[in-house]
């Protein structure tokens, strides 16, 4: 039956249950909102290239970009129709995305919520792609890949990951390459689908303006009417790495006016539970806010010296299978940028971080989270991310609230020389 999790502080309530076929369902009513956001997501992304298929015994390896390719094909219905059309008929807006770790199908609507819910469940669980349609999709995905290839931001990120990681599949572009997508077969797609799109590997979330009991009834009945083989935890193979980077420097030429450089710090694999990892994720972000935002002397000096400008950015992620921190900027002073950022990163290892800086940035992170709570998409995301880790979404927020100054030591050890790799995008020809 429905479990209820409530937060008095944030005035939100979430209901959850696991259906007999293994599908985890989360329902979050939001008063006052006109729209409802539905998300049906599988714990399968571009990292999952080696696995034991549902009906197999041996590990199988598939070409890069297949999870994304499959996402395109799942939208296809019988008789050359497209699922987005059916959603549009209900007045709903549908979309999908593939990331390193998941593939998600979603809709947003202000009417016909239950019908849209059924449709989402039905079309994802009933794909109709054929050999011909697989071939036809290659041309479309080619254009999508080329669009990203021309984006210096994408190229920079991918290049950075390829410098840091030798074998971890994160070094593959999520969409694959122009070559790898041509190697994807109809049979491969089917195998991936059958293995990873089992309800036991998936989560369904509904956030917004709907009746909880009616939604539960719709979803349960819909799933009860379908048959699935018994679910077995999927065996996946990953090439997890320590924090030694594969290459310390790389660059490529693109059609840009100013060089774009990035200094990347690799976070090595540690055998930790989900909350410990989430904690480190928050802490790294916090340290980034302290040293690399406009509130730091370091930042102000870099700006004063003309080394950085508004394009300067900091990103970080700590995840079970990978982790990194990246600082990048479009700048003619890329050599000085690389040098100073590297020096600063190494300094962080032994710095006594002032407690008031920690407290301030912790407040900022909390405020950021509260801001995001205005969005239904945020809730759908945090709910399912927590769900895949067997956590409650409020547990993640609580992890942030409970961060202690002393926790900083958990991540200061990350900042070592062998974990640093530089990747640059340079203009064609000579710099004028």
């Amino acid at each position, binding site marked *: 039956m429905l479990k209820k999790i409530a937060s008095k502080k944030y005035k939100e309530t979430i209901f959850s249950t696991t259906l007999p076929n293994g599908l985890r369902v989360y329902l979050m009513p939001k008063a006052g909102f006109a729209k409802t956001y539905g998300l049906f997501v599988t714990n399968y992304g571009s990292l999952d290239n080696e696995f034991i298929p549902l009906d197999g015994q041996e590990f199988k390896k598939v070409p890069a970009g297949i999870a994304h390719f499959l996402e395109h094909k799942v939208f296809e219905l019988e008789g050359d129709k497209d699922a987005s059309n059916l959603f549009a008929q209900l007045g709903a*807006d549908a979309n999908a995305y593939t990331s390193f770790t998941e593939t998600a199908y979603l809709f947003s609507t202000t009417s016909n919520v239950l019908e849209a819910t059924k449709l989402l469940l039905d079309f994802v669980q009933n794909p109709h792609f054929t050999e011909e349609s697989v071939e036809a999709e290659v041309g479309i995905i080619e254009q999508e890949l080329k669009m990203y290839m021309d*984006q210096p931001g994408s190229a920079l990120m991918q290049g950075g990951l390829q410098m840091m990681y030798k074998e971890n599949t994160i070094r593959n572009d999520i969409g694959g390459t122009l070559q790898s997508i041509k190697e994807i077969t109809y049979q491969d797609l089917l195998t991936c689908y059958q293995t990873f799109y089992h309800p036991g590997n998936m989560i369904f979330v509904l956030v917004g303006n709907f009746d909880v009991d009616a939604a539960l009834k719709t979803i349960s009945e819909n799933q009860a009417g379908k048959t699935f083989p018994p679910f077995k935890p999927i065996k996946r193979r990953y090439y997890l790495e320590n924090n030694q980077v594969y290459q310390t420097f790389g660059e490529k030429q693109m*059609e840009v006016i100013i060089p774009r450089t990035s200094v990347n710090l690799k976070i090595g694999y540690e055998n930790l539970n989900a909350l410990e990892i989430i904690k480190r994720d928050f802490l790294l972000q916090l340290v980034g806010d302290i040293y690399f935002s406009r509130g730091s002397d370091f930042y102000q000096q870099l700006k004063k010296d003309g080394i950085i400008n508004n394009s300067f950015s900091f990103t970080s992620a700590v995840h079970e299978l990978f982790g990194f921190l990246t600082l990048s900027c479009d700048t003619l002073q890329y050599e000085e940028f690389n040098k100073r950022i590297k020096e600063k990163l190494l300094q962080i290892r032994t710095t006594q971080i002032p407690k008031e800086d920690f407290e301030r940035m912790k407040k900022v992170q909390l405020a950021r989270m509260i801001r995001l709570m205005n969005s239904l998409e945020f809730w759908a995301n945090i709910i399912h991310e927590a769900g895949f880790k067997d956590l409650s979404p409020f547990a993640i927020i609580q992890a942030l609230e409970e961060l202690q100054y002393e926790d900083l030591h958990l991540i200061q050890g990350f900042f070592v020389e062998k974990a640093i790799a530089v990747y640059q995008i340079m203009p064609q020809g000579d710099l004028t």
Partner: protein
Amino acid sequence: MKANKIQLIKPNGQLDIYYMKTNKFKTIAAGLIFQTPLSEEYLVERSLLTNLLTKRTKKHPSEKDFYLYLKDLYDTAISSQMSPRGLVLNVGFFANIIDDKFLGPKVDLFPKALAILNDVITDPVTVDGFFEDEAIKQEKKLLIDDLKSMYNNKALYANMQLIKNMFKDEKYRLNLLGDPTLVEQVTKESLKAAYEKMLASSAIGFVIGDVDEEDIKKAFEPFGFVTGPEEFSYLDLETTNRTEIQELKEEQKIAQSTLCLGYRTDIRIGDPLYQAMRVFNGMFGKYFHSELYKEIREKHSLAYYINSEYASRKGALFITSGINKDSYNKVLTLISNVLAAFQAGDLDEENFELTKKAIINNMIEAYDQQTGLYRELLFFIEQKAERKSLEERIKEIESVTKEEVIACSKNLRLDTIFFLEGTNGDEEYA
């Protein structure tokens, strides 16, 4: 769905404050908007001011300290943005704060944030009334770097080139933030003049969130700005009568080419065919079920994206698509065929229904975001009266007829084509 009521509050008789009460969000948005006619004069200066003013104040003259001060106030965000609306330029200063009730301790962020906003606008760091040379120099450099990096976003760059060429004799081109060379020409005198002019222009304030009316009055009371009596022109009726379509090309060493088309239309907001034009644009190229998408992506696999965008104040429609360079002629022909089909009265029934539903869905969803409510507020202010209710506007969309859509398609005139040609072959990306 009931739309939120907008209240007009006049705390000191000079400044109009528009308050949209809602408890849907965990944040409060407030701001002050200066309005002037859109013109080239001081345009770059204004852009620089939005950055100069929001980084520090006389009370907090160090950028770093001001930043940390705001962070201590639970990440209170102070920002500024310029946006043209028709022939009006809005220069807005905004504060976005967490609603106190979601924080443990009582912090009184609203009055604090409004006081900071007032300081940001009226109490900047100056020397003898001028902005500091060093600060000006730095902001200029940052703006130039921003403009240069737009070059890296190929679809954006291609669109900018289309607009630059299509509207070279019209004010609409001023939508583009500017030319790096014009930035160089800014002096501390022109900046001071622009600043003073801005302070003297007509202003309006707003609040979106759950705040007591008394607190709003108190917070805005010290603001010394005035809402002027001017009538602003939110429609842009400028046009150029072109006898020949401009066909322009530029080569770059990139993988994907971007095709941009610019059309003119006489139909703008307020025109009897306005809602029909929105339906036409939706059917033409706005949604996954639109004709351009179906034809060029689904049927011919020639693009991953193709969109049409309707500039309703300007009277223009733009198509953008990422394609292979060899598909140029083919795609142009397909687009032309799609438009011709509309003009011949060949309308897909399903598309017609789906588009109306999608537009209505979008209209209702807009109310779930603070930015959507802000746009509602701006419309309310511009139309100087209660805007038609959401229900009325939905009915207008529902009653759009096929004949009206066809009439809209007949009113489109192709003006300019810009093609950003990517000359890198596939071998470069093995």
